[in-house]
């Protein structure tokens, strides 16, 4: 064996616990990389399965969907591994600075010094990477199993999707993925080792012999905080000074803890926002099943006015809709609320006098004289229309204005009455310029409007008319026996709107479907849970890599400082107060990590909320729960490492340490 390789080997043997933890770190990062590469190849196989080779028309975007998260995760893993592994090697190089000095005096070249460190990393890779690959394959296998469990639930809900799909991942043993992750990890470890080794090799022999080497102790005069002294006493002051003067040794620990805190808080924030979106999307109505008819449309530009007009290919009239309503109600114990709407045909121009002040404010430009609004024409089933007329105290056949508008003001939902009650008629204009005078006989305000009509509610001008041709019709049904009703309802729709067998979405120019209202929520729920499970496991494993760093740094620290500890002991420091000093060091370390991590984590969740706020009325909330959990976990980690250090200190003999 070459002498450089042998030196590396014995170095690994001497500090066993550090070697072990470094191995774990390397194995874990290899495992994570392998798992992610395997997921990508499995996901690729799934996409090829139902999209075909090259993923069809939207190939690029699907590929991005697969690759972007993989790259982000990969970068995170590599960044973490570099921090952890290079820290190990930096400390190792620092420890051996005198040894390097001796070697240089005996005539070792810079390259040979570099080689001893690099051999160390090769030894570590030789064991860590194969173990990691095995672990990674197991991880991928388990992960795919978990994903399939969620996919199973999704597949059972597939009938609400436009296309019939069957999601399932298969474990793909891809040697390219394994090779890629092995190479990636090898390069990562080599780079991490090379940086500190290169530095150490450049230190002049004479400085190595003096023992100065790479350690740069901060020599500025340091004040210790009064608070630390008051809280933790003299041991606290010592711990504080050591942390401040020797901050490079603790930097990697602080960084890995902070990264964990940031990721954890961001995840917590993301999840709570995903849940808030889910809540918001929940329509809040009593019905359980929606039967739906929707027509295809085409857009063209009107030559006369230059406006875009929308042509419905198969609009539905009130008569057909009523036929469906009647039939649906024939199913036992079933109430039906039928709504049809047309949002694209008309617009209207209203003068300022008819518009409430709040609405004008909402449009910001208050100086405007006339406001143009798109008009939504709504038609209901006969019974509910009659009820609505009764509420508005107008005869059947009247047009009723729903005087309610809600919009999202940067995270807050604003509800207002857009029009003054003096409004008596509207002039509806079509894209071709033709007009229609629409009298407004009744007005309903927010608390008079039935819940079903709030969904969806994006239009300011909503007119309920007795009869109309509309693009689509939805029947909100509340049957007692749900599954039987869905079957029945499908038959009814098939009868009234017959379609050719096996025609896919919109090939007929229209589409019908029946689904449970909760199904969409369920799909979203499953998707959110699936993503959450994966993100949390990823972060947990990433944190495990960070944890190995915390432990290995600490154990090396205790070894390296054995002389310092021995001196402290020999001047009369009791083992208890020595242990206390170490405890304070870890406490101060975690406080530091939290001080960096929490604000950044809060900032990340805040910025994630920004785009969400522009779409949904979901204001920013500080994820307190995650923060509290984080603090607990960080202190748990430091507490356990503290125990570990105390255990190490027990086996120390003062005289041996001083003489070494």
């Amino acid at each position, binding site marked *: 064996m*070459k002498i450089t390789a042998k030196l590396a080997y014995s170095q690994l043997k001497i500090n066993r616990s550090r070697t072990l933890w470094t191995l774990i770190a390397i194995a874990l990062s290899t495992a994570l990389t392998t798992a992610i590469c395997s997921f990508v190849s499995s996901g690729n196989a799934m996409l090829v399965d139902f999209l075909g080779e090259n993923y069809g028309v939207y190939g690029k975007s699907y590929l991005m969907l697969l690759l972007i998260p993989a790259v982000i995760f990969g970068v995170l893993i590599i960044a973490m591994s570099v921090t952890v592994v290079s820290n190990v090697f930096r400390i190792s190089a620092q420890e051996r600075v*005198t040894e390097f000095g001796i070697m240089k005096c005996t*005539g070792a070249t810079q390259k040979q010094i570099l080689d001893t460190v690099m051999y160390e990393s090769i030894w570590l890779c030789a064991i860590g990477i194969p173990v990691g690959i095995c672990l990674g394959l197991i991880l991928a296998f388990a992960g795919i199993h978990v994903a399939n469990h969620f996919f199973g639930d999704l597949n059972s809900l597939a009938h609400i999707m436009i296309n019939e799909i069957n999601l399932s991942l298969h474990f793909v043993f891809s040697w390219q993925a394994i090779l890629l992750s092995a190479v990636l990890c090898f390069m990562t470890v080599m780079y991490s080792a090379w940086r500190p080794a290169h530095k150490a090799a450049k230190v*002049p022999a004479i400085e190595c*012999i003096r023992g100065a080497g790479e350690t740069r102790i901060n020599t500025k005069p340091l004040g210790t905080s009064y608070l630390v002294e008051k809280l933790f006493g003299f041991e606290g002051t010592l711990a504080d000074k050591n942390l401040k003067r020797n901050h490079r040794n603790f930097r990697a620990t602080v960084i890995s803890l902070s990264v964990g805190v940031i990721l954890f808080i961001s995840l917590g924030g993301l999840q709570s926002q995903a849940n808030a979106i889910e809540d918001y999307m929940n329509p809040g109505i009593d019905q359980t099943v929606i039967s739906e008819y929707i027509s295809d449309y085409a857009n063209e530009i009107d030559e006369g006015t230059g406006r875009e007009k929308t042509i419905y290919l198969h609009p539905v009239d009130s008569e057909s809709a009523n036929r469906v309503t009647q039939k649906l109600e024939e199913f036992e114990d079933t109430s039906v609320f039928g709504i049809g709407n047309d949002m694209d045909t008309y617009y209207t121009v209203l003068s300022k006098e008819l518009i409430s002040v709040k609405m004008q404010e909402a449009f910001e430009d208050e100086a405007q004289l006339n406001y143009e609004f798109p008009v939504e024409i709504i038609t209901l089933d006969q019974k509910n229309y009659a009820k609505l007329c009764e509420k508005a105290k107008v005869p059947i056949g009247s047009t009723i204005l729903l005087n309610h508008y809600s919009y999202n003001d940067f995270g807050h939902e604003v509800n207002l009455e857009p029009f003054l009650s003096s409004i008596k008629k509207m002039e509806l204009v079509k894209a071709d310029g033709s007009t229609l005078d629409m009298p407004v006989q009744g007005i309903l305000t927010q608390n008079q409007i039935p819940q079903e009509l709030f969904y969806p509610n994006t239009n300011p001008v909503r007119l309920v008319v007795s009869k109309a041709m509309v693009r689509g019709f939805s029947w909100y049904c509340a049957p007692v026996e749900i599954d039987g009703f869905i079957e029945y309802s499908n038959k009814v729709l098939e009868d009234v709107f017959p379609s050719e067998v096996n025609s896919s979405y919109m090939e007929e120019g229209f589409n019908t479907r029946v689904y449970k209202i909760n199904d969409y929520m369920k799909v979203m729920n499953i998707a959110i849970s699936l993503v959450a499970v994966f993100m949390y496991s990823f972060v947990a494993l990433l944190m495990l890599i960070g944890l190995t760093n915390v432990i290995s740094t600490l154990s090396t620290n205790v070894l390296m400082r054995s002389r310092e500890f021995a001196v402290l002991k020999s001047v009369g420091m009791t083992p208890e107060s020595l242990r206390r000093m170490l405890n304070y060091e870890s406490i101060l370390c975690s406080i530091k990590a939290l001080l960096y991590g929490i604000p950044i984590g809060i900032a990340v969740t805040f910025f994630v909320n920004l785009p969400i706020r522009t779409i949904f009325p979901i204001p920013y909330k500080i994820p307190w729960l995650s923060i509290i959990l984080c603090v607990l976990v960080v202190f748990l980690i430091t507490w356990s490492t503290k125990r570990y250090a105390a255990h190490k200190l027990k086996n120390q003999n003062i005289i041996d340490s001083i003489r070494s």
Partner: protein
Amino acid sequence: MAVLEVKRLTKIYGSEDTKITALDHVSFSVNKGEFVAIIGASGSGKSTLMNLIGGIDRPTEGSIFIDKREIFKLSESELAIFRRRNIGMIYQFYNLIPTLTAEENIMLPRLLDNRWDDRDKLSSILEMIGLSERAKHLPSQLSGGQQQRVSVGRAMINDPAFILADEPTGNLDSKTSHEIIDLLKFANKKCRQTLLLITHDEKIALQADRIITIGDGKILSDEVMKP
């Protein structure tokens, strides 16, 4: 024949206000087979001189020739390789690699050249330093005197141009000191090994062929004791 030539060697530490001239235009030469002691009080510039001759520090001015080669003209790596083949160094604190056995420590300069050959040379050195029985021991399993003998062995393994010993007895009791000095003298006489010994102990210096006294970075005297 001069093995070592030191010419107008100057080393200045610090700059401007904190300028310290550790060596001030020092010149001398050492012939093959000579045993030269360099003495001086602490702070006189001994160690600086030693580090410069050993090629682990660079001078502010002046030059050193070892076997007619000007060592500071060599690059960092060339100098390292030159050092392992031509200079044997012994330190006050032994400076052995703790993870290598005694024989590996002795062989280190050769191992750095990837040479495990010439076991005869190793065993003759082990015999000379009297550690044949303890060749496989780690430094931590040896006494101070034994460790220092290992470093003498390491200095001699490559038959260097000269051995440079910096206070080799500074850390040892008087009996062990004698043993080490005797060992060095033996190497000097038997193998015609050139020996440069730095010490502050006059008794040890008196055993040399020639004593160079240094003070304030200058040579105060250069006396030949035994012709």
